[in-house]
């Protein structure tokens, strides 16, 4: 792979890199000045569309295309919600962008608002990021003082306010309509779609929801151009007309059992093995990987033999995972029990399900109870079939729930049981020698509170 220079992470390690002066010295805000002086909103939409940029928040939807779903000639207001809820276990790249280069994010937000004719951008920030909160607020203040925000920016007639809005420690606020409900001051219950936010979103007005890293990419595309962006990553598959390709740099979050956990920038399409070996210093303690989460816990599990899978938008799906997700790569070494890993995953989703949809509420809670029982040495082989059934029947993709949380809960179950079934069977037979074959209903263990 040719030497690749970080762009999104350019400011990391630069003294005072988070300040406006430093950002400008790196070329920041000049693209915005140029756009405001010379371009129309539609030009920016076309630029982002041409770049092939796909959203970095998890779903990988084409950003430019999403913007075109807004109604034409709408009298306004149109809103931009910037998703900084970043709660997918394993993920922390938004935090690093907000702390180390907040102006890159803000320039991206201003450009995106100009393109979509949004008059107000709300950054929905998870509560657990107090440092990001202070850094972003200080940067927003600097941007107002420099005339990049406020009324009639640079005399163009374009006005924009950016406000920070803090969440309250709930994963579901990252789902775009959960975020909208939460911002409106209600319970973060995702909405049934359609209508999609582009038509009827925040305060029932047309709304775009985009991730923080997506915003940073927009700023870099404006600075370095569409050709630059398209020269990085994995081009669209010519044999698949529906593949939009995986272009641009990506922030991979590497954690778990590696020597050097961290956020690393690489071209989309680096393999998990390259990431672990070249950036992460290898699996820790000289061990081998047993499994790797490709993009946050919702995406499921890859086995050791699947580690050469390219981590682009299409790669993880080819080995049965849900997708690239947030590109948060979590390494699990060969000394770790996969029962424990799945228990941890089930506990997370049982805790975070908002409870609106029966399959998700009951499925996440029962899968946790079964895993509690298996961990406690009371598991039965039949539980594996029940778990596999939950794993394949709850979710938006089978069509039984409102939002994608249920798919995210199902995938780790499905992958763990399919790919590591013999380890579950061994564990169950070893820890429950007299009861593993029972198929009649068994009394529940004392219910351990999920919350």
């Amino acid at each position: 792979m040719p030497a690749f220079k970080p762009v999104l992470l350019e400011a990391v390690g630069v003294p005072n890199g988070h300040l406006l002066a430093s950002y400008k010295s790196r070329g920041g805000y000049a693209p915005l000045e140029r756009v405001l002086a010379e371009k129309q909103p539609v030009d920016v939409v076309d630029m982002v569309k041409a770049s092939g940029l796909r959203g970095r928040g998890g779903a990988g939807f084409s950003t430019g295309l999403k913007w075109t779903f807004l109604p034409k000639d709408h009298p306004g207001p149109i809103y931009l919600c910037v998703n900084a809820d970043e709660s997918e276990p394993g993920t922390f790249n938004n935090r690093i962008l907000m702390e180390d280069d907040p102006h890159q994010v803000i320039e991206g937000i201003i450009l995106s608002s100009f393109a979509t004719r949004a008059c107000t951008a709300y950054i929905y920030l998870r509560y657990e990021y107090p440092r990001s909160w202070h850094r972003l607020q200080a940067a927003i203040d600097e941007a107002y003082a420099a005339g990049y925000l406020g009324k009639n920016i640079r005399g163009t007639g374009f006005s924009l306010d950016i406000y920070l809005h803090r969440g309250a420690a709930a994963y579901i606020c990252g789902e775009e309509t959960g975020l909208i409900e939460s911002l409106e001051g209600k319970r973060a219950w995702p909405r049934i779609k359609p209508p999609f936010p582009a038509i009827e979103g925040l305060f029932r007005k047309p709304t775009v929801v985009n991730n923080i890293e997506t915003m940073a990419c927009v700023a870099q595309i404006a600075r370095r151009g569409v050709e630059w962006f398209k020269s990085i990553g994995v081009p669209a598959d010519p044999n698949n007309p529906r593949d939009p390709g995986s272009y641009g740099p990506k922030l991979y979050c590497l954690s778990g059992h590696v020597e050097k956990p961290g956020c690393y920038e690489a071209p989309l399409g680096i393999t998990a093995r390259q990431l672990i070996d070249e950036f992460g210093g290898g699996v820790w303690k000289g061990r081998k990987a047993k499994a790797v989460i490709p993009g946050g816990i919702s995406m499921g599990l890859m086995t050791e033999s699947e580690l050469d899978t390219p981590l682009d938008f299409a790669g993880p799906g080819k080995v049965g995972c849900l997708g690239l997700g947030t590109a948060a790569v979590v390494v699990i070494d060969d000394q770790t029990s996969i029962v424990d890993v799945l228990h941890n995953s089930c506990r997370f989703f049982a805790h975070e399900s908002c409870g609106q949809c029966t399959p998700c509420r009951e499925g996440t809670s029962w899968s946790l109870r079964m895993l509690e029982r298996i961990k406690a040495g009371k598991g039965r082989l039949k539980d594996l079939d029940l778990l596999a059934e939950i794993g394949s029947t709850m979710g938006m993709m089978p069509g039984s729930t409102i939002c994608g949380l249920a798919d995210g809960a199902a995938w780790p179950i499905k992958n763990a049981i399919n790919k590591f079934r013999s380890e579950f069977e061994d564990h169950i037979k070893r820890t429950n020698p007299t009861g593993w074959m029972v198929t009649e209903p068994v009394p529940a263990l004392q219910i351990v509170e999920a919350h």
Partner: protein
Amino acid sequence: MIAQRKILTDEMIAQIETLASRYPTRQAVTLPALHMVHAALRQVPLEAVVEIAEVLGLAPAEVQDTLSFYQFFHQDKPHGEVRAFVCRSISCALRGGDELLEHLCHKNGVKPYGTTADGALTIEPAECLGACDFAPCILANDDLLTNMTPEAAEAELKKPRGRAT
């Protein structure tokens, strides 16, 4: 009505009004207002819910409905002077997060979500804090405690620290 207000200070009301100018509905200020009271009192008692509702022109039940969705807000009793969120999600669990939580609860004589008798410390299991590069980690008020061992965490949580903002 105003005369009976016990919890919201004039300063808080002024702040709520400033925030209200940022949104087209007053209901959108619910979460910021709850945060404001929680940061000051380390709880949001029912009286505060009633007062917030009054200022925002909502029914108290609407504010309480929102509050109760987020387990974040303590209502009946304040949380400790230090509120420690101990991460239990996957990247931290792989590096000893569960053991860390168990050790801290044991040494401080509390159950998860409990507060020490002197009101100094509340220990709460948390989902991914978005700092998995520093696993296992703890968010104690506004401070991120990184790469914690049980012993180091025990010592850190004895230290006084600034309030959560």
